[in-house]
């Protein structure tokens, strides 16, 4: 087994399985960070595995957004109706620990000594805010990005897919009167870049989509990145990161929760400081 920090999570892996754990602990239990859940852990697990080998199909249990996983990782989610067996299973834990394993593999979850203590009151407040945000009766006063509009842009938002234009990569993809997005093809950009500018909005100034959580987080931080492949993009900083940045600093993009509306969680790429 080899352990490392991967996309903000702790990862162990061997040929038969990958274990992803949240770095945050409350007492003796690992808990999710402020914008993490089983879906974001599963995306990290699959992307980590994809570094080493192809992942043809994954059986996804309830509690993980299969569409987000599939789009973010460009993999097939195993169809329960199919006659074939999945190549990989995703196994959930009662804690913020997730395993990607070959079917029937004997999984051993090692104890990791990295543990970031979280404040219990903060953790409970964030969990309560998400529960309220996820309630279908909760109506955000935010700009209305419908589920259909979100899904249309899910691929560039979750996997940084763009286009190759005459002058290089284009992201987010653009439509044109002359050429369609499809005709230009899809190009997955490298999920990292350098800081061109950044800001931290106070909770009072943040978009109202974030009004339940921004006061708990001390506002929201946004970076303008020049992506490695050329285009620029604006991204929220992951909620667990300190909002201190510097110009030209390298950052990587990882999938986290953005916000929820009408009982539906919108996921997307957020920026975090590139590991040294």
């Amino acid at each position: 087994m080899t352990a490392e920090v991967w996309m903000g999570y702790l990862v162990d892996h061997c040929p038969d399985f990958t274990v992803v754990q949240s770095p945050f602990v409350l007492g003796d239990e690992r808990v999710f960070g402020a914008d993490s859940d089983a879906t974001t852990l599963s995306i990290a697990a699959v992307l980590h595995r994809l570094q080493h080998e192809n992942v043809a199909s994954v059986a996804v249990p309830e509690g993980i957004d299969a569409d987000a996983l599939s789009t973010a990782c460009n993999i097939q989610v195993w169809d329960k109706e199919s006659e074939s067996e999945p190549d990989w299973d995703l196994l959930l834990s009662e804690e913020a620990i997730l395993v990607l394993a070959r079917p029937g593999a004997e999984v051993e979850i090692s104890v990791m000594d990295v543990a970031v203590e979280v404040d219990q009151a903060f953790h409970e407040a964030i969990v309560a805010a998400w529960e309220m945000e996820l309630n279908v009766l909760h109506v955000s006063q935010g700009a209305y990005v419908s589920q259909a509009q979100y899904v249309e842009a899910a691929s560039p938002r979750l996997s940084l897919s763009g286009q190759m234009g005459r002058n290089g990569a284009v992201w987010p993809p653009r439509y044109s009167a002359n050429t369609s997005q499809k005709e230009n093809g899809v190009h997955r950009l490298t999920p990292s870049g350098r800081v061109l500018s950044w800001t931290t909005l106070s909770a009072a100034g943040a978009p109202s989509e974030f009004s339940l959580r921004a006061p708990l987080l001390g506002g929201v931080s946004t970076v303008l990145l020049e992506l490695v492949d050329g285009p620029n993009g604006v991204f929220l900083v992951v909620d667990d990161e300190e909002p201190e940045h510097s110009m030209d600093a390298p950052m990587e993009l990882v999938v986290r929760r953005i916000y929820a509306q009408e009982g539906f969680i919108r996921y997307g790429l957020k920026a975090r400081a590139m590991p040294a």
Partner: protein
Amino acid sequence: MVALVMVDVAVVGAGQTRYGNHDLGLKGMWAEAARSAFASVDGDFDAKMVDEAYIGSLAFGGAQLGNTAALLTEHSDMEGLPVRRVENACASSGFAFRDAWMAIKSGQADVVVAGGIEKMNDLTPERRRYWLGVSGDTEWERLAGLTFPGTYALMARRYFHEFDATHDDLVHVSVKNHLHGSLNPLAHIQKEVAFEKAASGFMVADPLTLYDCCPTSDGASCVVLAADHVAKRMTDTPVWVRGSGAASDHLALHDRPSITQLKATQTAGRKAYEMANLTPRDIDLAEVHDCFTIAEVLATEDLGFAQRGEGGRFAREGQGIINQGSVAVNASGGLKSKGHPLGATGTGQVVEVFKQLRGQVESQRQVKGAEVGLTHNVGGSGATCAVHVFGRDRT
């Protein structure tokens, strides 16, 4: 062949409400602005003479999202006209004014009203933030946590990185505009602010503080435009529209090659100067779109009052102060102090230039010898822009 002779267009009347937190609703505010504009026409004028009306508004709050113009003109004695709401975010009435100018310029109308209105202070903070965030690229910028304070904060930080400028330069903009606004009885915030106070304001979007941000204002403004052949019956002192330019740019900041300049402003300004056959050096006063202090710094560069990268120094040296520098910038107090009722701002800028060029503002605020003025109205973070050049002389 019939030779077509383009008409010249003049502003013959202009008025506005006080900007701020109004008790009046949409109809009442518009009626007040229209009355003020109509009353300012010196000679032969009646609302029945108006051929068309263009009213800019974001329809903030959604209270009258549809058929806004029909409702408002009904309450200002202009029933039955062809009217429409013009929407280009904060540049709505700058474009309403341009449309009115074009209607006359094309020969299809002789007398046209352009105006703008916004009612913003009757909403809960949540709803207000919603409406303040609908004019960027909502799908990408807003879901990346950005409202306009954040967008302009990204510009400011980048500007500080690229050029010899600091937040203190923005503080100078704030202090100047509060000084000018303190002299304007129609301004939302009629008080000066000390440098030290403005420098240490509550952080809204790092590095922009409360004193870098314009207030949330209610207000309405109204302008009467006329073709040259009827303008002379309406006033002896028309203010001529010498040049009109407009442009658009990528809506999202991340799609622009540079975030320390507004291409739409540069293009609109160049077109307006060319049409007027004037240069930035000819401008005596400019009402520029300082929704945030960094926006004024960029505008002074993009409109040619300062060289690129020198906008900070321009502010530091007080070059925009009335009767002190090379051009009076935001003699009204600008959006920062006069206020920013989104849809009303563009024609509100015209009201100020109209009165300045006719020598009709308060004496302490009057730009001495003002012959040529400019208005600069920006939508969002620079996706749309309308620039107009005005003169006491027709050419």
